[in-house]
Structure formats: structure tokens, C-alpha cells
């Protein structure tokens, strides 16, 4: 099954809609709760990143019985130093974003932590694509 979501870049309150929807669909499909949790957290952090850093983007989720494959693509400003961005606590988020409860520098590290495969490609001025896989162990 392939699902497609558009993440609007201008509405912070809607960030998390895609992850919530995917979570409910996976529940209905009977995936184990820890697999659902990992996918939800990784995708939610990705959605938040798309809204606060990249003016939105697109998500493709491919669900099979053996794994969940997530691709998050945006045409935002890109990440100049990926290694730095992957460090716990490193953040370029504004004070305004921090006041909204994010920007603790845990977004990308969380996405990596909760997924079995994690790849990120980014080009300044072009955009960022994150690919993540979570295996279904059942």
C-alpha cells in the first residue's frame, strides 16, 4: 500500500496530521504497537522539520508486511552541514519555534534513533530528502 501526504509549510498546527493518519492506518492493519510507535515518532519529527525549516514538503509511505518505507522530500533551503545537524542538541531553529515546543535539536537524531535505516541527502538551495525504513519484526 502506498500513501501520499502533502505537508503544508505555513500551518504549524497541522504538522503531525500525516503521522497521525499513518499511525491510525497501521493500527487498523494490525502492526505491533512498538513498530507503529517508531514510525509515528520518526515521521512526526520529519513533518515538524518540513514545516519549521523547509516550507512544507511531500511524504510517501510504502507499507508492506515486512517494512514501512518513508520518503520525505522538500524543496527548502537545504542543510549545509549534515553531520552537525545530526548531533543531539544542535539546532538552527528560531526562538519562535522553541516557544512552540520544538527546536531542541533532537529532530534528526530522533528520526535516526527510531528507524532501522536512515538516509539523508541535502543540497543547499535545492532541498532535502530523507529516506527511512522501519522493519516489521512480527
Amino acid at each position, binding site marked *: 500500500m502506498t500513501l501520499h501526504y502533502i505537508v503544508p509549510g505555513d500551518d504549524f498546527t497541522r*504538522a503531525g496530521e500525516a503521522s*497521525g493518519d499513518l*499511525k491510525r492506518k497501521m493500527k487498523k492493519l494490525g502492526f505491533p504497537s512498538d513498530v507503529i510507535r517508531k514510525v509515528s515518532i520518526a515521521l*512526526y519529527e520529519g513533518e515538524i522539520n518540513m514545516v519549521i525549516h523547509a516550507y512544507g514538503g511531500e511524504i510517501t509511505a510504502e507499507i508492506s508486511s515486512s517494512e514501512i518505507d518513508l520518503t520525505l522530500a522538500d524543496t527548502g533551503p537545504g542543510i549545509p552541514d549534515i553531520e552537525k545537524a545530526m548531533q543531539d542538541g544542535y539546532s538552527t531553529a528560531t526562538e519562535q519555534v522553541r516557544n512552540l*515546543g520544538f527546536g*531542541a535539536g533532537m529532530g534528526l537524531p530522533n528520526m535516526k534513533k527510531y528507524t532501522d535505516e536512515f538516509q539523508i541527502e541535502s543540497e543547499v538551495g535545492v532541498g532535502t530528502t530523507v529516506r527511512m525504513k522501519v522493519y516489521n519484526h512480527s
Partner: protein
Amino acid sequence: MTVRDIIDYLDAELLFGDDELLDQEVQHACGSDMMSDVLAFVKDQAVLLTGLINTQAVRTAEMMDMKCIVLVRGKDPLENVIELARERDICVLKTEHTMFCACGILYKHGLRGGHSV
């Protein structure tokens, strides 16, 4: 303890929650205003104490399968928060206590931090 007990211990106001939700047993909680920290460190906590009053508090609770959000420092939630909590079946309470005191009171009554990832 149950969510109903939390209302009692914190002199909290119930902003959303039906009988079934209020009778839920909860054993572990966490307190944070940073949702990324909740997503990073929380494992099986059912209660989120926070000063964050936007919809992302509800979405974070949803992702972590939490049952109850306690808004501390007497803050009222922004619009859409209660509506979203109702859709997601998550209780929302409001207390005048500060984060420190609210956590302390609940800890005194047996609520614990639980495991973190």
C-alpha cells in the same frame, strides 16, 4: 492512580475527558515543554505535564500513546486543542500549580517517571 485522582490531587479543571477516560489507570508521567525531548526520552509514560498549550502537545501525546495531558501554570489551551484531544481520545486537564509543584504532588501520591528510552 486514575486520571480522576490527578484532578483531585492537583485541584485541576477538566477541559476534556469522559468517564471512561477518567477511570483509566496511569502509573508513569513525564514533564516537559519541549516536545522533541518527550519524543526522544519517553517510553511508557501515560501522562504529559506541560506548559505547551498548542496542538503539538496533543499530537505528541498521540504519537506516544499517552492518555492525559496536564496543562500547568494555569494556562488555557489555544483554539483547536480541545477539539483535537476529543478526536484522539486524550484527556486534558488544567492546574494552577507550576510544573515543579504539579510533578512533586503527583510523585508524592505514587506516580513515577517510568522508563526512558
